[in-house]
């Protein structure tokens, strides 16, 4: 039986980013097991957005650190990941909203994020074609941005393979061998691997794998839908957020975006016309020149949502089992910092950021939930 220092379940951004930092920490024998292809889960389906405009210290600090890594990765990873700091333009539609977001901006500034409230005139300068009717102002952060998920994963995969990490795709974890407080080996539909440490970063399936190991994670899966258009010449660099609508233009020229259709908890990824209709009418009302642009693809993926809409990171009741889940729609942007935090925890038994200490699974037992208000799409 092959044996590994760390086995990572899940070939999404979290699995790959953690493996990247495990390599950096000097861990030698690492394997990633992915049920389908790398990126087949939520990462390959996400909206590409990366922002620091959040409403809690935990999210703001983690994302500030994550953006630093995104910038570094754009420079040092073997292939371009198309990280672009085009900003996030968060439209505000009333004076109350404006007042509320001023408080968030103050908090963001306190922790070193360069966001600010801007006027309609400034919005017009940033996105000239936006329809300003009914808009009061915007919360604007120029260092927010986006990256291209599949390029990020390809690049990380290339790095990991060249550093001796085993990546097993189209291989599914089906069972575990364990003692009372440790996992000894992991069984897949093809093989069995002995291990010292196990990270479950299996996205929507993290909870069910944990259940198999005898503990629960309070997360729920919600379907979220998203579309891309035909490509056009670049005319839009920020991510625009208008209530539950978000959209930007990828470096390949396609408009990518989504909206919230308030769906029930589900494990079904069927697409709906209801979404298409809501998205189109919201998009066209704020950016009417897009009305004749054709949509090319429509797909869906899961938001894995925790009770306080913050990630659940690190230790579990089993001594050598670690988890990363519950990003509630922000796991792509958090990927680099969460990977670094999880790798540190697995290597050294602790986090290196105080804020991450608040994000462990035992907070729910202890009743120490964190509340986040700015969740979109």
């Amino acid at each position, binding site marked *: 039986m092959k044996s590994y220092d760390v086995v990572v379940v899940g070939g999404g951004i979290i699995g790959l980013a953690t493996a990247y930092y495990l390599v950096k920490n000097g861990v030698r024998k690492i394997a990633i097991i992915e049920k389908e292809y790398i990126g087949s889960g939520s990462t390959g389906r996400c909206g590409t957005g990366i922002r620091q405009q959040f409403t809690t210290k935990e999210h703001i600090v983690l994302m500030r650190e994550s953006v630093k890594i995104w910038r570094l990765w754009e420079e040092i990873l073997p292939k371009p990941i198309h990280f672009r700091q085009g900003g996030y333009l968060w439209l505000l539609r009333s004076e109350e909203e404006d007042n509320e977001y001023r408080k968030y901006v103050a908090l963001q500034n306190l922790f070193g994020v360069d966001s600010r409230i801007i006027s309609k005139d400034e919005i017009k300068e940033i996105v000239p*074609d936006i329809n300003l009717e009914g808009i009061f102002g915007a919360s604007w952060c120029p260092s927010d941005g986006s990256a291209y998920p599949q390029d990020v994963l390809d690049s990380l995969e290339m790095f990991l393979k060249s550093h001796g990490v085993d990546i097993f795709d189209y291989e599914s974890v089906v069972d575990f061998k364990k003692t009372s407080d440790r996992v000894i080996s992991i069984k897949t539909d093809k093989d069995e691997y002995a291990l010292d440490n196990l990270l479950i970063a299996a996205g929507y399936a993290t909870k069910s794998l944990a259940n198999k190991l005898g503990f629960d994670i309070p997360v729920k899966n919600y379907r979220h839908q998203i579309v891309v258009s*035909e*490509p*056009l*010449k670049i*005319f839009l660099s920020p991510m625009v957020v208008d209530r539950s609508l978000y959209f930007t233009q990828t470096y390949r*020229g396609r408009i990518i975006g989504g909206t919230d259709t308030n769906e029930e908890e589900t494990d079904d990824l*069927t*697409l*709906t*016309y*209801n979404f*298409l209709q809501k998205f189109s009418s919201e998009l*066209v009302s704020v950016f*009417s*020149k*897009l*009305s*004749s*642009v*054709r949509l090319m693809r*429509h797909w869906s993926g899961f938001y894995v949502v925790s009770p306080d809409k913050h990630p659940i990171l690190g230790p579990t009741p089993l001594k050598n089992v670690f988890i990363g889940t519950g990003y509630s729609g922000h796991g792509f942007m958090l990927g680099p910092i969460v990977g670094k935090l999880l790798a540190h925890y697995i290597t050294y038994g602790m986090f290196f950021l105080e804020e991450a200490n608040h994000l462990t699974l035992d907070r729910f037992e202890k009743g120490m939930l964190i509340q986040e208000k700015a969740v979109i799409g």
Partner: protein
Amino acid sequence: MEIFEHPILRFERKSKITFFFEGNPVEAYPQETVAMALYRNGINVFSYSPKLHRPRGLFCAIGKCSSCLMEVNGIPNVRTCILNVQEGMKVKRQNGLGDLPKTSEFLKSEKEYSPTVLVIGSGPAGLMASITLKEKGVDVLLIEQNPNLGGQLIKQTHKFFGSQKEKAGTRGIEIANELVKELNSLDVNYFTNTTLFSFYPRENVFLAFKDNELLKIFPKFVVFATGASEKMIPFEGNDLPNVMGAGAAQTLVNVYGIKVGTNVLMVGAGNVGLIVSYQLLQAGINVKAVVEASDKIGGYFVHAAKLTRFGVPIYTRTTIKKAVGVDKVEKAILVELDENFNETSKEFEIDVDAILLSVGLQPSYQLLAQAGCEMKYIPSLGGYVPLRSKELETSVKNFYIAGDVGGIEEASTAMLEGKLASLSILKKLGFDVEKEKEALELDLAKLRSTPFSKKILQGLKEVAYE
């Protein structure tokens, strides 16, 4: 480049209208598409590609390949081969990716339809399906993305083989005329210039655009009769304007009376290549040569003989290596192949201004795949095709197929399949059609009993399910 005399066809050219190309006024006939009007006026370059700025023009001419995208009235990426010209229309070449549209208004209205049966595609299969259903009083809605009903039949000037019942001895265009006449006398509800582009199973809604109107269609049954499109083969310069599918040349010549070139090369000596070559000769176009990669002519002997009579050389074991030209084909470089289909050092060039590809067709399966029908790759049927029951029902309940979308054959089998799909639906609706169906299945089997059908029958076996 207009054709004035033709042994079979008459081209109606009455009034003229004016539209603008790159700011210049251009004359066109109403009822013709933008792409055809441009060709008539000697314009072959429709856009420049995004990365390498290479010129691009027409390829399929039936709305299936996106090679003809241009900016029309401020909206980029418009398929000009299926858009009718209008007085005053502003048409521009697209340089790379399109610009953000200049107009803010697009969707003018929405309409809902709940037909018993939705038929997608108005070729022989779709027409037959619609007629068979409407004859029994079933409510049908027929959708066609091209300006004319009839699919590929409207450009077939040759007489069909097969049995009398399937209109053998009649020209394709006449069959199309007859079927359309029947469709109209039955008062079938149809829309042309309407592209059906999406299906959502949850709401059971099909979406289509007819100009600026969104059609929402909620059918009980669907017949997918979306046909096929021409395949491309790799060679240097294959994206040069006037390298196009043989079917596109047929559209230019036989539907609109426009010469595709003066001297042309046909690549592929299957039936399509041979028949189209002959039709070009009839229209006064010089077919310089036909090349065929295998060592045998694939099509029927009678078709090849007609070309030989005109003195057209058919080079077997030869293929195209390169298309040469700046904005349009000016020369073709050909190469002889050895018995393993490898290129030899024997190359020769011919001066041609159009290179037509008849290297096979592939089923237009995209909507079926989107609708979740189980698909399989079957080379002898042309590529990805849906699994289907004997009654032509796909793996998705109440979704039927007919014609080339289920496997490349020809118009007679397409008509019979269109009828069969409809009879299967009628049966589910409670009509007594058992006898008619049995007779039809016999006819279909008879049509497929020639040696040419062997591979097709084998392919059909692989996609059959109960």
